[in-house]
């Protein structure tokens, strides 16, 4: 049988981002897959040499919009480790809350795209409709829907009042109810199972040896999640990872669906246990040529932004219009990081790792970002051979590819 090399991507209806695969097919069966990257490489790691380490927080957030909060969290934890900054406990809980909300909106985005990949467009719209409510929470509490910019070195730049926490909990109750209504369709529908079960199987051994992370690893039977390391407030919340065992596209879908519901529980638990106190540490290492970084915000603009769309769908009470306590928006960190650190957090797509090296100046000497999709591409190359050409879009999407992250 003659072999044909077929280009898949970088522009493809099922791919929101430019991943290019050269698929060698034989009688509609994929026999080899080779990746081509570099379409959106931005060299963000190199920017650390010309930007202040505080400015880098905003830059790493732009590695990926969908998990911006977790990039900033991972970076800030690394700087804090180098500089020996003790983050207030309340800030750790707030980081956990916003981080898990990011996981929810990322998984809902993926669940919608996944449904769209096998032609289930109404399901796609239902998941995205629920996601809007999570985006509303982001906007009401952070001022932005996607790149929320709440993390700063030393803590967070915003606080949540009791009324806001109550409002968030109301929104979560409605969202969870709406997601549970979609559970039967996404996990038990004949079409979904036909397109996902047994497709793109990654065995337990392959997943580990090929370096898979996140739902790909857990969908193949490994109970490993960077949240178990106890970063932010996870050390006090008793976290257990979600695991599925079949290793196919359906298992990865089930992991993400169950993780969405788990994140609701984590947010509720974090709100319930969140202690009072400061939201950011003030650090002064004694250097005299740096001006403190002061971050301020305007709560009024946030509410105005929230209310500007008259067609905004609100089925529960609107966010409470409250003034944030004085000082909650200000964070001052002064100093020059000198040393090395490696930090890890669990992004929606899997484990994210930062290597940071400071040389005693206000710039970082090296910032290295290992994103989850970068780790999941080798397992993808192992999963594709043997599958039917028609299943390639579903299998590729099942790893939740983020090429923006991968190429940085």
């Amino acid at each position, binding site marked *: 049988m003659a072999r044909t090399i077929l280009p898949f991507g970088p522009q493809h209806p099922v791919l929101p981002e430019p991943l290019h695969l050269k698929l060698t097919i034989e009688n509609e069966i994929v026999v080899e897959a*080779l*990746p081509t*990257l*570099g379409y959106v*490489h931005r*060299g963000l*790691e*190199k920017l650390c*040499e010309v930007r202040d380490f505080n400015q880098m927080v905003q830059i790493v957030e732009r590695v990926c919009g969908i998990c911006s909060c977790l990039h900033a969290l991972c970076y800030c934890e690394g700087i804090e*480790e*180098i500089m020996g900054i003790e983050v207030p406990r309340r800030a750790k809980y707030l980081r956990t809350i916003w981080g898990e909300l990011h996981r929810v909106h990322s998984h809902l985005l993926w669940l919608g795209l996944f449904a769209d990949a096998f032609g289930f467009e109404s399901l796609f719209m239902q998941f995205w409709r629920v996601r809007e409510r999570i985006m509303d929470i982001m906007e009401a509490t952070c001022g932005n829907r996607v790149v929320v910019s709440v993390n700063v070195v030393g803590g967070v730049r915003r606080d949540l009042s009791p009324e806001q926490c109550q409002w968030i909990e109301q929104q979560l109750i409605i969202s969870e109810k709406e997601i549970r209504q979609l559970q039967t369709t996404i996990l038990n529908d004949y079409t979904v199972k036909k397109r996902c079960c047994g497709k793109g199987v990654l065995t337990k051994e392959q997943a*580990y*040896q*090929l*370096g898979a992370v996140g739902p790909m690893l857990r969908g193949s039977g490994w109970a*490993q999640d*960077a949240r*178990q*390391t106890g970063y932010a407030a996870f050390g006090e919340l008793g976290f257990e990872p979600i695991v599925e065992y079949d290793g196919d596209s359906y298992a990865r879908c089930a992991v993400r669906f169950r993780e969405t519901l788990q994140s609701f529980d984590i947010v509720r638990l974090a709100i319930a246990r969140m202690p009072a106190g400061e939201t950011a540490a003030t650090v002064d290492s004694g250097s005299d040529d740096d001006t403190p970084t002061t971050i301020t915000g305007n709560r009024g603009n946030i509410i105005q932004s929230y209310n500007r769309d008259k067609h905004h769908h609100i089925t529960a009470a609107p966010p409470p219009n409250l003034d944030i306590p004085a000082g909650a928006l200000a964070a001052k960190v002064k100093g020059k990081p000198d*040393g*090395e*650190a*490696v930090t*890890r957090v669990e992004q929606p797509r899997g*484990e994210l*790792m930062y*290597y940071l*090296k400071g040389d005693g100046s206000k710039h970082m*000497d*090296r910032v*290295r970002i*290992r994103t989850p999709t*970068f*780790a999941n*591409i*080798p*397992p993808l190359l*192992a999963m594709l051979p043997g599958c039917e050409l028609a299943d390639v879009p579903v299998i590729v999407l099942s790893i939740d590819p983020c090429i923006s992250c991968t*190429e940085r």
Partner: protein
Amino acid sequence: MLETIPLPLDEVVAVAKEHFDGGWRLVTMTAVDTGEAGFEIFYHYDKDLVMKHYRLSIPKETVVPSISPVYFAALLVENEIRDQFGICFSDIVLDFGGALYLEAEVRAMPFCKVSVAQKQS
């Protein structure tokens, strides 16, 4: 602060094999340009959420043995390091020849503090 284990050049593959057999996962590799001293390459391994970091210090223009025959996942990292820093790896299982991100005719290494000429492995 980061604790690292010094790694001699001739033990790179043996250490990788030892970790692979011991059930360690390769998290990633990190290259750092240390100026005139050359490069440092970190090998980050993980087992049960415990990480080990090996530090390989090499002069510029050193060819590093690839660990991709042991850890297939290393192929992307090694190709990326070659693109960004011009460090060549011998025996990569899938060698993009310095063109994973860059065009083939590019010779300046974008992540180096001082550009070095790329050598063929």
